[in-house]
C-alpha cells in the first residue's frame, strides 16, 4: 500500500510536536516581579535569613506571593511592582551589607511545568534591556608580574643555600643570574634546575652567567591563571553590584564577557569593573632626605610617591605586604566617627605583617594604592599599554604589632573608605583589565524591539500562509500546518537549551527560516505536479514527489547548516543569536516539512483511490 505510514510512525511525529508545544508553553505565562537576596563574601542566605525577610515584610505590611530559598539565594515574588519596590527598600535597609538585594523578574511558569524542566526562552539584552561588557585582560602585565616574583624567588633561594651571586636581573625574555666563581654557577644551576622544572636553563661558563626562560606551557599557564582569577574577581564585584542573574563568562584567550540584565546606571558598574586596584603596605623611609629626593637624588633603597594632594613621601623600596593576602575589607567608623577600613589577611599575610611591624612600632607605615589605568598607547602586538599609577592613600603610625586583622584610618571621606573596601575585597588583580566593548540597551528600546520582532514574525508568517494556501490549495494548508509545527518546535527547543537566548537578529533568523522552510514543501509539491503531468497515478505521484525531493532537501539544508554553524562558532552577541535560531530552524524545518507534512498527507490522502488532487 502506497503512502501509508504505520501507526507508530504517525504517533511518534505527533508526540514530538506535542512535546515541542509543551516546552513552548512557559513562554505564554509572562513574569512576576520579584526581589532576589543573595549573600556576599562567603555569606550564604539561609533559613534564618528567610525568616528575617518574612518578618520584615509582614512588619511593613507588604504582601508577597511566595518566598523560596534556592542555592543560597532567596527569591520573593510579589503581585505588583509597587510592593516589589517597597520590599526592596525595606530589605536593603534591614539586611545590611552582607547581602545584596536586587530587583528581578521571575518567570511565572506554573509548578507542574517547572517540575518537568519547562522554562521560558531567555531574552537577550537587546530585548530585555541591560548592559553587556567585553573586557580584555592585559597578559603582558601578568607575565611581567610573574617574572618579578621569580627574580625575588631566585635571590631568596640562592641566599638560603649560601650560594653567592653578583646579580639577578629580568632581561625581557630571560632572567639572568651572574656569578663570581664557576663553583657558585654550578651549584646555583643545579639548585634552580631542581626547583623550577617549568623553566629552561642555560649556562655560560665564560661569562659565569646562567639564564632561565619560561616554557610555552608555563606562559600558557600564567595567562590561563590570570584570566581565571580575573573572572573570579569580576564575579565578586558583579555580586556587589546587586544585579539579578548576571553572567560572567570567558571568551577566547584573553576576553571576559559580562552581561548585566536590567542595569541602566552603567557609569557605576563601569567604575567598579574597571578599577584594577591593588594595595601595598610599605614603611615610610624616615632616614632619607626628602628635599634631596625631590631634586632627583632618591636613596637607592627608597621610592618617592605622592598622595592625591601632591604631598610627597619617601618610602622603603621593600614591600612589607602586597594586597593579594587580603581576604576581606569592610568600611566603618572608628571611635572618633572617622571613616576607616578594616582589613583581614590570610595566615601567610598575617605572619608577614606581624614580622614587618614588630620591630617598627611607633614608625609610620604607608598604604599605597596602585591602579593600572589604560593609556591610548599600544605595544607592537596591539595590546593596550597600561600605566601604573601609585598613590599614597594613608600614612598611619604603627600602634602595635599588627596581625591578621587591622584597620586603616584617615583614608578620606566615608564614600572613599567604602569604595576602597570594595576594591580591596574583590581581591588584588593579577593582571590589569579594561573594557573594550560596551552595549547598553535602555528598557524602552528593549520593549520596542520585542514588539517589532513579533510584528515581523507575524506579518511574515501571515503572508507565507496566504500565498501557500492560494497556490497549493489543500496541500498548501498541509504545508502551513507543518510551518506552524516548525515555529512551535523552534520555540520549544530554544526554551529547552539552557544557553540559547533570543535576540532581535534571532527573531530575524526565525523569519528567514519561515521563508526558507517553505522551500522544502515547494520542492515536493512541484515534483508531485510534475509526476501527475507525466501521467503517473496520484498515489505514485505523491510517493515519487516525496522520495525524489528528499535527497535534494537534505543536501540543500546541510550546506546552509554549515554556514549557520560557522556563524555560531565565530560569532558573538547578535550574530550568535541569529546563528542559534537559524541552525535550530534548519533542523526543525527538515523534520516538519518532510516528515511531518508527509504524515499529514498520508493520513488524509494515503492509500485511497483518487481521481484528482487538490494541489
Amino acid at each position, binding site marked *: 500500500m502506497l503512502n501509508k505510514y504505520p501507526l507508530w510512525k504517525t504517533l511518534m511525529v505527533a508526540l514530538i510536536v506535542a512535546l515541542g508545544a509543551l516546552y513552548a508553553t512557559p513562554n505564554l505565562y509572562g513574569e512576576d516581579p520579584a526581589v532576589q537576596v543573595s549573600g556576599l563574601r562567603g555569606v550564604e542566605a539561609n533559613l534564618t535569613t528567610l525568616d528575617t525577610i518574612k518578618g520584615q515584610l509582614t512588619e511593613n505590611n507588604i504582601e508577597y506571593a511566595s518566598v523560596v530559598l534556592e542555592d543560597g539565594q532567596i527569591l520573593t515574588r510579589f503581585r505588583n511592582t509597587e510592593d516589589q519596590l517597597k520590599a526592596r527598600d525595606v530589605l536593603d535597609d534591614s539586611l545590611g551589607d552582607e547581602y545584596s538585594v536586587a530587583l528581578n523578574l521571575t518567570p511565572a511558569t506554573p509548578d507542574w511545568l517547572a517540575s518537568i524542566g519547562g522554562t521560558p526562552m531567555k531574552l537577550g539584552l*537587546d530585548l530585555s534591556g541591560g548592559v553587556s561588557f567585553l573586557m*580584555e585582560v592585559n597578559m603582558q602585565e601578568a607575565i611581567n608580574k610573574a617574572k618579578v616574583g621569580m627574580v625575588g624567588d631566585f635571590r631568596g633561594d640562592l641566599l638560603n643555600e649560601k650560594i653567592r651571586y653578583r646579580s639577578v636581573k629580568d632581561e625581557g625574555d630571560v632572567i639572568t643570574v651572574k656569578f663570581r666563581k664557576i663553583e657558585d654557577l654550578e651549584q646555583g644551576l643545579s639548585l634552580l634546575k631542581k626547583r623550577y622544572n617549568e623553566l629552561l636553563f642555560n649556562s655560560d661558563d665564560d661569562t659565569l652567567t646562567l639564564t632561565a626562560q619560561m616554557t610555552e606551557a608555563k606562559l600558557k599557564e600564567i595567562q590561563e591563571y590570570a584570566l581565571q582569577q580575573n573572572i573570579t574577581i569580576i564575579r565578586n564585584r558583579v555580586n556587589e553590584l546587586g544585579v539579578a542573574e548576571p553572567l560572567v563568562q570567558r571568551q577566547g584567550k584573553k576576553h571576559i564577557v559580562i552581561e548585566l540584565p536590567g542595569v541602566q546606571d552603567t*557609569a557605576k558598574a*563601569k567604575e567598579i569593573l574597571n578599577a584594577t586596584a591593588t594595595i601595598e603596605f610599605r614603611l615610610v623611609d624616615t632616614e632619607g632626605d626628602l628635599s634631596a629626593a625631590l631634586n632627583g637624588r632618591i636613596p637607592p633603597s627608597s621610592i618617592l610617591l605622592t598622595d592625591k594632594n601632591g604631598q610627597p613621601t619617601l618610602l622603603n623600596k621593600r614591600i612589607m605586604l602586597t594586597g593579594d593576602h587580603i581576604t576581606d575589607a569592610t568600611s566603618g567608623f572608628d571611635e572618633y566617627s572617622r571613616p576607616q577600613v578594616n582589613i583581614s589577611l590570610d595566615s601567610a599575610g598575617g605572619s608577614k605583617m606581624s614580622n614587618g611591624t614588630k620591630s617598627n612600632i611607633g614608625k609610620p607605615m604607608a598604604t599605597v594604592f596602585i591602579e593600572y589605568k589604560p*593609556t*591610548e598607547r*599600544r605595544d607592537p602586538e596591539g595590546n593596550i599599554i597600561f600605566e601604573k599609577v601609585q598613590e599614597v592613600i594613608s600614612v598611619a603610625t604603627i600602634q602595635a604589632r599588627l596581625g591578621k586583622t587591622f584597620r586603616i584610618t584617615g583614608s578620606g571621606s566615608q564614600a572613599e573608605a567604602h569604595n576602597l573596601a570594595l576594591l580591596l575585597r574583590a581581591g588584588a588583580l593579577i593582571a590589569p583589565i579594561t573594557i*573594550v*566593548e*560596551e*552595549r*547598553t*540597551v*535602555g528598557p*524602552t*528600546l528593549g520593549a520596542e*524591539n520585542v514588539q*517589532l*520582532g513579533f*510584528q*515581523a514574525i507575524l*506579518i*511574515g*508568517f501571515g*503572508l*507565507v500562509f496566504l*500565498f501557500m494556501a492560494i497556490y497549493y*490549495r489543500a496541500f498548501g494548508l498541509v504545508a502551513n500546518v507543518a510551518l506552524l509545527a516548525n515555529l512551535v518546535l523552534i520555540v520549544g527547543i530554544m526554551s529547552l537549551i539552557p544557553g540559547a537566548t533570543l535576540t*532581535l*537578529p534571532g527573531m*530575524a533568523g526565525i*523569519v*528567514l527560516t*519561515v*521563508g*526558507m522552510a*517553505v*522551500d522544502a514543501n*515547494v520542492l515536493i509539491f*512541484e515534483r508531485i505536479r510534475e509526476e501527475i503531468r507525466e501521467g503517473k497515478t496520484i498515489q505514485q505521484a505523491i510517493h515519487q514527489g516525496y*522520495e*525524489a525531493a528528499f*535527497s*535534494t532537501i*537534505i*543536501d*540543500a539544508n546541510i*550546506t*546552509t547548516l*554549515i*554556514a549557520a554553524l*560557522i*556563524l555560531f*562558532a*565565530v*560569532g558573538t552577541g*547578535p*550574530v550568535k543569536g541569529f*546563528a542559534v535560531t*537559524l541552525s535550530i530552524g534548519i533542523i526543525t524545518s527538515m523534520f516538519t516539512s518532510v516528515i511531518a507534512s508527509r504524515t499529514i498527507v498520508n493520513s488524509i490522502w494515503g492509500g485511497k483511490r483518487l481521481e484528482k488532487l487538490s494541489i
Partner: protein
Amino acid sequence: MQILQLKETVSFMKYRKFAMIFSALLMMAAVYSLAVNKLNFGLDFTGGTLIEVGFEEAADLQKLRQLMEDNNHEDAKVQFYGSSRDVVIRLGLRGDVKAEMLGNEILAILEEGTHQKVDMRRIEFVGASVGDELAEQGGLAMLTALICILVYVAFRFEWRFAVGSVVALFHDVLLTLGLFSFLKLEFDLTVLAAILAVIGYSLNDTIVVSDRIRENFRKIRDTSAEEIINMSLTQTLSRTIITSITTLLVLAALFWKGGTLIHGFATALLFGVFVGTYSSIYVASLVALGLGISREDLIPEVIEKEGEEQEEMMP
C-alpha cells in the same frame, strides 16, 4: 494555481554570453565601488562610541550639535534615527583614558543642555582592538564557510559543481558588498550575518539546480550537456521563483516592520536573494558547463537502482 506552465524547454544557455558579460560588468562595478567608496564600516568594526537617545518632543539637531561643540566633542555626528524624536550621536575613537565613559558623559551633557529628561535608548562603545579582531574573524568565517561548502559539495556531487557553486557564492557576496559600498550603507555585524545567510540561501538554490542536472544526466542519454542544463533549469524554474517569492515576502516584512536596527540586515538579504536566484541559474551552471561537465562525470561507479540513495539517507 500556476504561475509558470512551461511546455517548452527554455534555452537558458543560449544567453550565456549575455549573462557572462552582465555578471562580469556587475562584478567589476562592485570591485570599483569597493575600491573607491570603500565599505562604510559600522561601529562594530571601526570602534568608537554611539549613543541613541529619545526626546519628549522633536529634537533640534543644530542645537544639539552646538551643545556637543561647546563641550569639546567637535567630532560628534548628530543624526535623526527613525523619527524626529530619536537622535543618534556618533563619536570616533578617543585616546582618553576613560573612553568607555564617554556615553554616560554625553548623556549628562544632553540632560543638562536641553533641560529635559532624556531617554537613554542605547549606548554602544567598541574599542579599537575589538574592531580589528572582528574584521579578521568575519573574513575568516566567510572563508571557512566557503571551504567547508566546497568540500561538501565536491564530496556529494562532483568537483565541477563545487567550483560552480563556490564561484556563484563569491559572485553573490561580492555584489552584495558592492551594493553596500555603492549606496554607502552602514556595514555592521548584522549585515555580515545577513551575507552569510545569503551564502546559505544562494547555495540552497544552486544545489537544487545541480541535483536536477545530475538526475537528468543519469536519466536521459544522447543529449548534449547544454540541453540537459536547459531542461533542468526549466524544470526547477517554478520552484525557484516560488521560493524566492515567499522568502522575499518575509524579508519585506522585516524590512518595513523590523525596525531600524535590522534595516541593514534586511537590505542585504533582499538584494542577496535576488542575486542568489540569478546566480543559481546562470553563474553556477555556466561554470560547470565551462569546466566541461559531462554524463560520464556523474554516472556513479556502481549502477544503483532508483531510490536506493534516498534510502541510505533515511534515518
